[in-house]
């Protein structure tokens, strides 16, 4: 701690904090303009000047001056006031002063400062500059005449988003914010809008819809991806108008501009029942009665195992928990799974095999009744935990790692917050980034090492890295207790580095260098995405990475962890609350009973016409046809199911196969919680009217009650209390936090993994089905979602040389054929892709990428013009 005085007040401040931090912490006001808590200070505007003794004989910027022992700081004096006034006049000299029509009016830092500093006249004159307003860029409007050249937008775009899409042009008085003289061509995350202190950057989705003081603000978690960002939702007259993140200003485009999808005209409004080959509208009572009656009829005739459930990575923890309770307690079966089985669950299984299932001790009930959505459990002093969740990293710790290896993830589209964390880490010179991918991705530009491997060869590459490390350092030993090391070493010994280099396409020297960096690291982090988990050998890929982490990881060091991407808002939650046949809530392995088939196994049973194949399917949202590989097969198999109930907000292709469709609440029409990719709890409070649809939890509870199960609940709060009581690992869990700290006991067991990387078929191209930056699942593909203006359809990414050989130009249609099917899609020339690799986003229904896939997100295809 450092002792200093500010305006005569004795203050203790943390070492390394700035005078501004210390003042704010003690409620002392210092005006600022270019400072923002999410950015490194640059001391550009000098509005925050203070007098510091001992120090130079001139005022210093409080935002960029660090506290020191014995400092005397004065924040206000006639001299300082005069400087600030003069600076404000200079700022205002060419300001548009169009507050009445400026969207920022009412929450503008310049308005506030003008008021606070008592600037009444600007008695300076200068040539008026022509404002080069930008009305043509999508989603963001620019008014340079309102800009105060604080550089906050430029810095957030460069230092956090990493897009470097905007910068100042010219200099001095003529300085103007610009994007290279062209309309914006960027990530359209809109973070620059929220960080701008004035109205120079305007959110087009929100423009002219309300004034800042007229809206109701509700803080909530973003319900799109697994990033778990929190924001304020602005509503007026029950309509969602805008989302703002006041804390870091960072959100991605789908989070910031995606919410209008709530008001999509495509939303289902009433339950639908299949009749005469079509659907007719039905009342809730009728639809729910029919579902309950039919379920009963089927269980009476064929046993309760005849109903199979598929939970949803979109639905809340509460809904998913009730869903599994419906099966496990109500029907007494374990016939359920979630679609994460094809991606994230593969990773969890791999991690669990190496690091074990979670074990927790030293947890007790809290004395007082807990607040809503707070765990009723707390940790005692002896609280201990072990198992794979302990090696899963937190995003806020990632910048503390010193080496990060990214494999099989185009970081930003997969999980934007991972990208922000990497950019933050990259501000430290000691941080090393190694990016391995089958194509050039955004972070390759900043990587210290860039490895380009052949599609699908990840696990062999990892084997090569391990081999190279163990060859260079035969005495190497993991930092944690690890079993099976000797056999593992023997197995790895068989790996031939030359062979690895040849098959993966990564030069031996780069493999060795990667191994050396990992070996030197004090806090290595390993990041991987659904690109790698979504292969048919996703489990083997994760085993390889888990083994690598067991070998080089230092779980005690902050930031040293594994960071698998949980793609959707509740991909992790749906697993944690037990919507998998083999795990009860809290990843407790099911014992003493036979787990039901997994989702792929269930499809196999249907294919074989096995007597154990389900007679009824209960789908909690999730357009399986759009998500699962081999669409035509899935379609054929789902059609075989006599009775299918789908809860969804939209009439998806899967819903069209159902007998009963129940329309559900989305976004802030419902209350509940999610678990983000890093395990923290996000709270979604209700802020929008439901207009006749119902939240998932309520529907499940009503069907359950009608079937005679004890499943009636008053609210998600009550469900959370019950759920969290059974989850010792969630002890201390509260909104925006990941629970109490346990003493970690990390141990592991090396598990051999397969290194065969052959991809079936002989077609000349490899297609990768992956993520687009502007979309999250299929949720964002409905009008009027804001990001549809940026990416409105699927386009096939193709290397320009390949395109030329095929006679294809940008926008031409290509016919893509695999062993499974054929689609026609416009191409977009993508130099980032190597020759021979093509890319298709997974989100859209037309053309459906999954028509081409077999059992993996990689498939061999032929491409022709037409």
């Amino acid at each position, binding site marked *: 701690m450092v002792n200093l005085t500010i305006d005569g007040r004795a203050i203790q401040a943390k070492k390394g904090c700035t005078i501004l931090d210390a003042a704010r912490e003690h409620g002392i006001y210092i005006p600022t303009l270019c400072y923002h808590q999410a950015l490194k200070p640059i001391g550009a505007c000098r509005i925050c000047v203070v007098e510091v003794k001992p120090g130079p004989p001139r005022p210093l910027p409080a935002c960029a001056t660090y506290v020191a022992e014995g400092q005397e700081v004065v924040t206000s004096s006639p001299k300082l006031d005069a400087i600030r006034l003069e600076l404000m006049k200079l700022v205002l000299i060419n300001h548009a002063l169009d507050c009445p029509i400026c969207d920022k009016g009412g929450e503008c830092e310049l308005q506030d400062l003008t008021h606070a500093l008592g600037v009444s006249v600007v008695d300076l004159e200068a040539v008026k500059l022509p404002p080069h307003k930008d009305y043509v860029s999508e989603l963001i409007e620019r008014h340079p005449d309102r800009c105060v050249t604080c550089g906050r937008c430029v810095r957030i775009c460069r230092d956090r988003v990493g*897009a*470097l*899409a*905007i*910068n*100042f*042009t*010219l*200099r001095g008085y003529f300085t103007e914010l*610009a*994007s*290279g*003289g*062209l309309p914006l061509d960027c990530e359209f995350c809109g973070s620059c809008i929220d960080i701008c202190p004035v109205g120079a950057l305007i959110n087009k989705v929100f423009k002219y819809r309300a004034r800042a003081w007229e809206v109701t603000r509700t803080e909530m978690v973003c319900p799109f991806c697994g990033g778990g960002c929190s924001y304020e939702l602005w509503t007026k007259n029950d309509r969602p108008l805008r989302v703002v993140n006041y804390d870091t200003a960072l959100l991605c485009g789908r989070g910031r501009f995606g919410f209008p999808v709530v008001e999509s005209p495509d939303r289902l409004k009433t339950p639908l029942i299949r009749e005469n080959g079509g659907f007719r509208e039905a009342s809730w009572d009728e639809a729910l009665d029919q579902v309950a009656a039919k379920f009963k009829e089927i269980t009476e005739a064929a046993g309760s195992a005849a109903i199979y459930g598929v939970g949803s990575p979109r639905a809340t923890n509460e809904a998913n928990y009730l869903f599994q309770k419906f099966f496990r307690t109500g029907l007494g079966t374990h016939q359920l799974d979630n679609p994460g089985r094809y991606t994230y669950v593969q990773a969890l299984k791999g991690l669990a095999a190496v690091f074990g299932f979670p074990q927790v001790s030293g947890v007790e009930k809290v004395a007082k009744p807990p607040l809503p959505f707070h765990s009723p459990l707390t940790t005692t002093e002896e609280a201990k935990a072990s198992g794979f969740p302990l090696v899963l990293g937190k995003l806020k710790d990632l910048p503390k790692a010193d080496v990060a290896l990214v494999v099989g993830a185009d970081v930003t589209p997969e999980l934007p917050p991972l990208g922000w964390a990497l950019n933050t880490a990259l501000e430290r010179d000691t941080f090393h980034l190694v990016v391995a991918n089958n194509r050039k991705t955004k972070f390759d*530009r900043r990587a210290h090492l860039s490895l380009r491997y052949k599609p699908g060869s990840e696990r062999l590459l990892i084997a090569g890295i391990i081999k190279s490390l163990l060859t260079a350092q035969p005495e190497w030993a993991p930092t944690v207790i690890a079993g099976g090391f000797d056999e593992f070493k023997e197995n790895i010994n068989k790996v031939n580095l030359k062979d690895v280099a040849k098959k993966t396409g990564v030069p031996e020297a780069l493999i060795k260098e990667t191994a050396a960096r990992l070996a030197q690291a004090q806090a290595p982090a390993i990041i991987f995405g659904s690109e790698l988990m979504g292969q048919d050998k996703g489990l083997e890929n994760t085993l390889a990475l888990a083994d690598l982490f067991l070998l080089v990881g230092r779980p005690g060091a902050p930031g040293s962890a594994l960071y698998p991407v949980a793609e959707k808002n509740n991909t992790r939650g749906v697993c944690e609350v037990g919507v998998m046949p083999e795990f009860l809530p809290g990843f407790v392995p099911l014992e003493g009973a036979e787990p039901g088939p997994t989702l792929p196994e269930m499809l196999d049973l249907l294919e074989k016409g096995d007597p154990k194949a389900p007679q009824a399917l209960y789908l909690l949202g999730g357009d399986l046809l759009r998500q699962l590989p081999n669409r035509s097969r899935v379609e054929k198999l789902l059609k075989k199911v006599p009775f299918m109930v789908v809860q969804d907000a939209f009439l998806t292709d899967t819903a069209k196969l159902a007998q009963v469709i129940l329309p559900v609440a989305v976004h802030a029409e419902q209350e509940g919680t999610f678990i983000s990719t890093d395990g923290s709890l996000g709270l979604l409070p209700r802020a929008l009217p439901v207009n006749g649809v119902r939240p998932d939890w309520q529907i499940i509870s009503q069907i359950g009650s009608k079937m005679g199960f004890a499943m009636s609940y008053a609210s998600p709060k009550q469900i959370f209390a019950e759920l969290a009581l059974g989850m010792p690992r969630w002890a201390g869990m509260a909104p925006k936090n990941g629970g109490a700290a346990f003493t970690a006991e990390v141990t592991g067991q090396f598990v051999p993994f397969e290194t065969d990387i052959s991809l079936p078929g002989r077609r000349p191209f490899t297609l990768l089905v992956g993520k687009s930056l502007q979309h999250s699942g299929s949720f964002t593909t409905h009008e009027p979602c804001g990001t549809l203006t940026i990416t409105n359809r699927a386009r096939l990414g193709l290397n320009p040389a390949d395109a030329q050989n095929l006679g294809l130009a940008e926008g031409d249609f290509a016919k893509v054929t695999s062993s499974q099917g054929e689609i026609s899609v416009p191409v977009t020339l993508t130099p980032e892709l190597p020759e021979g690799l093509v890319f298709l986003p997974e989100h859209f229904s037309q053309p459906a990428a999954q028509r081409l896939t077999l059992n993996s997100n990689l498939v061999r295809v032929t491409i022709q013009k037409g």
Partner: protein
Amino acid sequence: MKATTLEIDDILERYPKQPQHLISLLQDVQAEYKYISPEHLALICDHVGVPLTQAWAVATFYKSFSLEPRGEHEIKVCLGTTCHLKGGGRLVEACERDLAVARGHTTEDLRFTLDTVKCVGACALAPVVMIDEDYLGAASIPSLQKRLEKL
């Protein structure tokens, strides 16, 4: 102007594909073509791996780069303190009127580029106008007009 210009590719080849070579490339292209066209800027960006906005910021920050074609002749009217006091402002205005071009820009026929500068270090001769490499001292509107007509 030289009779033949180097191909842009030959200029790019001079530097490795690293961001730190941005300014050198801008300088070479500026020297060869007298300005940096949007196409060339894009090629430079691709070569050194710098986003367009960043290169644009650099190219507009330094006066020695031009993103517009430069005229055959460059007229630089001095507006430094002395020249300003001696009426440099009126000289620029006269040029703008006579050549129908705004300061900082080039005439449509690409004959002249009109610029203002802040002191060329010849205050004793104020007001000064530089035409290409020559100084025109104690300039007046008629003397300037005469000089331009000669070109």
